[in-house]
């Protein structure tokens, strides 16, 4: 009896609070850019190849950036040391690939995917663990002080990059994809690299897991509430700091995963890899709106698509395409695609 009344009350309350309509315009923008690029690129098969490459790159960047945006949203910490975890993930992948060389070169799809899975899990585990230590040692003493946060996390990134050089050496390490994932498959006339399909699939899985956690679990509810208004959540008795440590470690693990995929995508790993990706991540974060997960996704997809189209049409401008995109978006929405309220 009481159950039904409370259920009725809950639905009544849910009806009383009107759900904010989802803003579809950024989604339309992503689709529009892809469609506009079609006639500009000319051939449909090239366009399809570029679009899938762009989506794969966007997914990888999104995976790496999602932790950064949550950490910023929750605790107002902008972690310039995020690049460290990306590099870490890529280097762990090289070790796993070298250690399981037999399975990676065997022409069996199952064992190849197994190697990728081991590399991904190892990268996430190590990056997550180091992320915990990083939070404790580097970030925790400087909560609430923006300037010091930037400086200290940059310092942490320097130390981390040097330690990576101590462990893996300063030279570049090739990271060839496993045998069965090399080459491409033909979709009609468009050739699509198999590795990119794997990246898109992993990206979709992570995206689904992330959205499910954020939207359907209590922890996700607390995280979203914390992003909106930290003090209010704390005053309700939840320790947001503990939650934050978890989010930081999870974000670092995701960065490790992103780095692992990025390294496989680039097929070569250098110690500066994190710094290179970090620039992209920041652009994506600014485009999407600092602290917003959905914005981060659309920002990453936009950057991935535009970089690939421009890289095909005018290779020299590829580096500037993402900055140009950022400027254009900021002119349209100065706070990013999905501004996080209350900040």
């Amino acid at each position: 009896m009481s159950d039904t009344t409370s259920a009725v009350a809950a639905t009544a309350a849910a009806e009383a609070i009107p759900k904010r309509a989802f803003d579809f315009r950024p989604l339309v923008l992503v689709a529009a850019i892809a469609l506009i690029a079609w006639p500009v690129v000319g051939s449909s098969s090239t366009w399809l190849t570029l679009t899938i490459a762009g989506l794969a790159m966007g997914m990888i960047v999104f995976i790496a950036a999602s932790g950064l945006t949550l950490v910023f949203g929750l605790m107002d910490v902008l972690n310039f040391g995020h690049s460290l975890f990306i590099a870490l993930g890529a280097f762990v992948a090289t070790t796993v690939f070298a250690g399981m060389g037999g399975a990676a070169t065997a022409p069996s799809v199952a064992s190849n995917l197994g190697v990728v899975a081991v590399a991904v899990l190892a990268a996430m585990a190590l990056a997550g663990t180091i992320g915990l230590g990083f939070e404790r040692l580097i970030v925790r003493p400087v909560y609430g002080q923006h300037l010091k946060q930037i400086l200290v996390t940059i310092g942490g990134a320097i130390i981390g990059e040097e330690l990576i050089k101590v462990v893996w050496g300063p030279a570049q390490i090739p990271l060839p994809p496993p045998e069965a994932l090399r080459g491409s498959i033909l979709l009609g006339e468009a050739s699509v690299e198999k590795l990119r399909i794997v990246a898109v699939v992993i990206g979709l899985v992570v995206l689904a897991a992330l959205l499910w956690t954020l939207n359907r679990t209590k922890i996700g509810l607390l995280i979203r509430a914390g992003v909106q208004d930290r003090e209010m959540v704390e005053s309700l008795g939840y320790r947001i700091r503990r939650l934050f440590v978890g989010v930081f470690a999870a974000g670092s693990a995701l960065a490790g995963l992103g780095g692992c995929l990025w390294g496989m995508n680039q097929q070569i790993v250098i110690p500066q890899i994190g710094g290179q990706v970090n620039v992209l991540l920041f652009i994506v974060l600014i485009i999407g709106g600092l602290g917003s997960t959905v914005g981060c996704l659309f920002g990453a997809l936009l950057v991935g698509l535009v970089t690939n189209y421009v890289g095909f049409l005018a290779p020299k401008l590829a580096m500037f395409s993402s900055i140009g995109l950022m400027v254009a978006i900021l002119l349209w929405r100065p706070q990013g695609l999905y501004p996080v309220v209350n900040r």
Partner: protein
Amino acid sequence: MLTRLVSHDLPKSRWLALALVAIVVALALTPFVFPGTKALNVAAKVIVFIVLAASFDLLLGYTGIVSFAHTMFFGIGAYGIAIAATRIGPTWPALALGSACALAVSLVLSLVIGLFSLRVRAIFFAMITLAVASAFATLASQLSDFTGGEDGLTFKVPEALQPGTEYAAEPFLGASIDGRLATYYLIFVAALVLVLALLRIVNSPFGRVLQAIRENDFRAEAIGYRTVVYRTIASVVSALFATLAGVLLALWLRYNGPDTTLSFEIMLDVLLIVVIGGMGTIYGAVVGSVLLVLAQNYLQDLMKLGESAVQGVPVLAQIVSPDRWLLWLGILFVLSVYYFPSGVVGRLRQLGARKAGA
């Protein structure tokens, strides 16, 4: 007179004053006291970095915003000279034109970046400058027809500054009086003027507003200062000084390439200098530059000794290897942000204040 010269911003510590005087005297007498090309090169690098770091301090220490594009403006200055000298020829008007163009480019770029990013949130500035600076570095190495690409540009300076130009037949106190020496003193005097000008700026009413914004931007805005305008002006001024530092460096090296001026390592060096020396003091840039450049040039020798001492110990030998000196500077950097937020200069001042109080 001296007080007016440093804009009433005295070192406020006997040890700091002593150190500053020692640094200035040592830099002024380097050609005669420390013989050899290496010493002179190190001294010239110290001088250029003092200007570069002091101009960065205007942003980081006084205004409280972090820019990662400072080396970009440094590079623009150096490329301005390099391109003018290769395209037009090694004449004074060409150098003047090159510097003027570089200053104009820096002015426009810093204004655009500032207005774009500072309008929204100060933290955007750090991210956007990082992105723009890395794009600029890529651009500089791609436009090889214009900038010499990865190889950079080697060029001639006007005859008065060339090493072959002898001003006196006999060496004076062991140093030959040639164009190289003239270049050194040109850089020395220019740097002195620039640093004093920066001191003047940070101690002006404008500088006080910047410090107010650093302490509490909300309150500064409430009092009626447009924080966006002040922050943008600060970033433009700082960019212009960095450009001039780049001009000085190019004059000294007679070469410029992406690695000498645009690389992210130099940006880290500048950050280290300002933080270790002491943010928001200008004098910190002087002390920090001396420490860092000396460490860069001589600490590696020391680490080589250390490496040979622990040869054979697997991890330790790797960690003290001279290639890993950035690791130690990174640790020093993090520790100084935590424990000495006011840097060497702040520490020395506290020491003096405690003694005076006791």
